């Protein structure tokens, strides 16, 4: 059978479908990079730029190519695209995972984590963007020329094809972000687009636009099998990637490092410890639980006491693969955050607003005041997180069923929108949101946001937020203190007069104490920990200070530290107030906050210069990412 000419309608339809799937590939690639790096604006811009550049290169190559425009040529391009597109998202995620695998299991442990190498690996994954863009660049010129062959009214046809191309592209981006991503996941969305591409090939084949030769039929079958195989494999492969990502907290790194590829893979495949991976429309929620689950620090010593029955079982929460808390150390964070402002300003709030904190741990702390706290409004933007906090047995145990208390009211809303629209008044506001690492989050640290928070506060009420400030340290360059200045300047611009920064002891130091109790020899201490231990110098200073009582027993690791990893908080009062470091016993059951620790908080020094030019606003957004978050080894 000889091939025939295509009608204009067929060409238009094909154009719309192929440009639809190309844009789905592009957005899926952008989404993969965003899920790996967390910075949407940068990677989305970069992906679209590289894609368009490659598209241009493809168009140029097509115009220069010696091969005449023909349906067999188009068929080949589409077939290649469905192969490349199907493998794109999974390929990018796998490349990143392969590097992580190498860093976790194969590299020598002494080598420092190479941020530059990691960045290079992630960047090199943009080869997919270039490949898909280049191949897509051939499509439209080919279709334009193929359409011009048959019809007499070619001029109008050209415009219609361009129109179909643009409409297909629009539909692709909309369908990806509104339908595909919420229903499937990133990998399956790109597979769906590849299947669509394959359908175009099938149509071209069966509608007799190309000769039906056996070679083409085999290639079609191969492409179909490839897509089906990837669809079947994508679940298990992503599960492996997840285990590989959490190898440190799962204790797999120390257990398996240097044991050879086959053994590590076998062990990973047989791994049964719970990693609950929950995909909500807003984010990925990962809950690691079980006896072997450790905080990032203890993970290093896992092989030594994995079978120790005295080791408590741990639970860790990660949101979008970022560490939130570990059950062994969360009390340090939440007790200090909740109670210190109440201690400093000597006022138990009647009405409380919690922004974020959908795990219910902060609410648990505030409910300890009994009837003195009359109501808590908790604003959380992910309904799935609240459901989990209500239903997950591990989380329920940790938050002591805080959400069953009638005093707690949950509002599902964006915090920015809530504080802008609300007409309620509160005695205290607690802000427990992710750090401003991307432009989506930085609006929750803007002067607009804080001004509205201040509006919701009663006079004399305090707002407390968790923010990783840079404490005073002679060795640090001045540039490191800039993020302190951004936050303080923004808070001043929002009208807060009294700003009290405070910090806790080092989280890792507490874990170090746990390691000591578990009998891990000092030679195994991380160099980082050794550095902290040199903080004994500071202790000597403290001892000479009148009023200082040396810590006893379990508190031997107690010291104010000057490490960037310390949990730090900022409390601000609406109106003038003088903080007093007097511990008032409200009769609460506290594990970490003691009179000594409250006293020690005043030794924290956080330098900052106010500068009206550094205010963070939605008109002038600034990212002020804490540096330790980018530490590869601690993820």
């Amino acid at each position: 059978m000889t091939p025939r000419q295509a009608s204009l309608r067929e060409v238009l339809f094909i154009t719309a479908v192929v440009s639809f799937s190309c844009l789905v590939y592009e957005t899926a690639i952008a989404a993969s990079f965003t899920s790996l790096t967390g910075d949407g604006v940068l990677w989305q811009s970069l992906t679209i730029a590289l894609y368009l550049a490659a598209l241009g290169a493809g168009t140029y190559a097509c115009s220069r190519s010696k091969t005449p425009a023909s349906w067999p040529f188009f068929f080949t391009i589409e077939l290649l695209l469905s192969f490349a597109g199907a493998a794109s998202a999974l390929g990018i995620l796998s490349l990143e995972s392969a590097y992580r695998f190498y860093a976790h299991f194969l590299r020598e442990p002494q080598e420092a984590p190479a941020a530059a190498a990691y960045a290079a690996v992630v960047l090199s994954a943009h080869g997919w963007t270039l490949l898909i863009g280049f191949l897509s660049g051939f499509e439209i010129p080919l279709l334009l020329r193929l359409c011009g062959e048959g019809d007499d009214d070619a001029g109008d046809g050209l415009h219609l094809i361009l129109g179909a191309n643009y409409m297909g592209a629009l539909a692709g981006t909309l369908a990806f972000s509104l339908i595909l991503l919420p229903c499937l996941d990133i990998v399956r969305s790109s597979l769906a687009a590849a299947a669509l591409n394959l359908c175009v090939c099938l149509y071209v084949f069966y509608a007799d636009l190309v000769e039906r030769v056996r070679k083409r039929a085999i290639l079609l079958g191969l492409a179909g099998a490839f897509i089906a195989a990837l669809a079947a494999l994508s679940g298990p492969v992503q599960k492996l990637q997840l285990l590989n990502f959490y190898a440190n907290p799962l204790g797999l790194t120390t257990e398996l490092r240097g044991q050879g590829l086959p053994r590590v893979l076998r062990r990973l495949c047989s791994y049964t410890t719970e990693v609950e991976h929950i995909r909500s429309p807003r984010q990925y929620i990962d809950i690691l639980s079980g006896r072997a689950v450790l905080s990032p620090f203890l993970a290093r010593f896992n092989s030594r006491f994995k079978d120790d029955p005295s080791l408590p079982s741990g639970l860790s929460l990660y949101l979008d693969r970022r560490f939130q808390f570990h059950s062994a150390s969360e009390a340090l964070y939440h007790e200090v955050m909740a109670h210190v402002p109440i201690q400093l300003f000597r006022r138990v709030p009647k009405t409380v607003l919690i922004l974020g904190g959908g795990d219910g741990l902060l609410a648990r702390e505030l409910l300890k005041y009994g009837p003195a706290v009359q109501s808590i409004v908790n604003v959380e933007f992910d309904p799935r997180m609240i459901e989990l906090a209500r239903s997950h047995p591990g989380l329920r145990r940790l938050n002591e069923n805080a959400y069953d208390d009638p005093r707690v009211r949950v509002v599902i809303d964006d915090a920015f929108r809530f504080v802008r629209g609300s007409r309620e008044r509160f005695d205290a506001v607690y802000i427990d949101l992710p750090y401003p690492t991307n432009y989506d989050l930085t609006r929750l640290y803007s002067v607009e946001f804080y001004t509205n928070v201040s509006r919701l506060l009663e006079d004399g009420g305090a707002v407390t937020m968790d923010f990783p400030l840079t404490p005073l340290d002679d060795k640090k360059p001045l540039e490191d203190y800039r993020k302190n200045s951004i936050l303080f300047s923004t808070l001043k611009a929002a009208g807060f007069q009294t700003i009290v920064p405070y910090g806790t002891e080092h989280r890792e130091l507490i874990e170090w104490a746990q390691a000591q109790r578990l009998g891990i020899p000092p030679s195994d201490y991380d160099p980082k920990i050794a550095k902290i231990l040199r903080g004994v110098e500071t202790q000597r200073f403290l001892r000479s200070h009148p009023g200082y009582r040396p810590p006893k027993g379990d508190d031997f690791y107690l010291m104010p530290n000057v490490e960037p990893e310390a949990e730090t908080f900022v409390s601000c009062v609406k109106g003038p107030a003088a903080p007093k470091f007097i511990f008032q016993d409200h009769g609460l059951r506290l594990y970490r906050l003691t009179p000594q620790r409250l006293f020690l908080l005043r030794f924290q020094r956080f330098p900052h210069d106010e500068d009206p030019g550094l205010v963070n606003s939605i008109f002038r957004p600034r990212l002020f990412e804490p540096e330790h978050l980018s530490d590869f080894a601690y993820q």
Partner: protein
Amino acid sequence: MNPLPLFLLTAVLSFCSIVYELLLAQSMSATLGDSFLRYNVTIGLYLASLGLGAMLCSRRRKADLIVLLADVEIALTVLGALGPLLILLWDAAAFKAGTCALLRGQEWIRRALVLGFDHGIIILIGLLSGFELPLLMRLGKESASDLSSEVLAVDYFGTLLGALAFPLLLLPGVGVLSAAALTALLNALCALYLLTFLRTDARRLCLCCASSALCIAMLVCREPLQRAALSWYLQR
């Protein structure tokens, strides 16, 4: 037209267009949240309206290419410079309208007003930008050797530059309002070049100077402008 100015013009114009769109996406994310959706929708609408603009442009075969291009540039300068500011202020205005007694509880009206306005600006800038490439390619075709495919390649290169400069330099370096003004100033300079060296048209030249003055004013008074915009945004 000589190849070098033509290529420069193409690169600058495509740079400006993509930066405008990304700035609009950023302003929408700032007011409405959910930046992944906003950026995707913006890119989709931009590509679609770019195509639509190119189609509209091909209807105007008789027009003087350079004058038409200069008109488009002047319009883009004004819209591009003010676009992000308009999105942010319109959001505040709609919020205020939503708090008045008549519209209270009618959240969807406010949302529809905001979304319609924001996407309208995106489409308008996309349409105007869509005029550029066909005009430049026709200018390329008219030159001594056919430069139309080279113009296309340079256009993609300009887009690449813009999409890199936006997240790495413009947004962290100068912020939304000044980035818009800077980019618009580039656009205005292109129009100025077209109107002084290639055509003399006093009326259009006046308009062009006025639009560049607007950009320069936005840059010089960026601090007071930002303060004023902020207080308008926060006023209830």
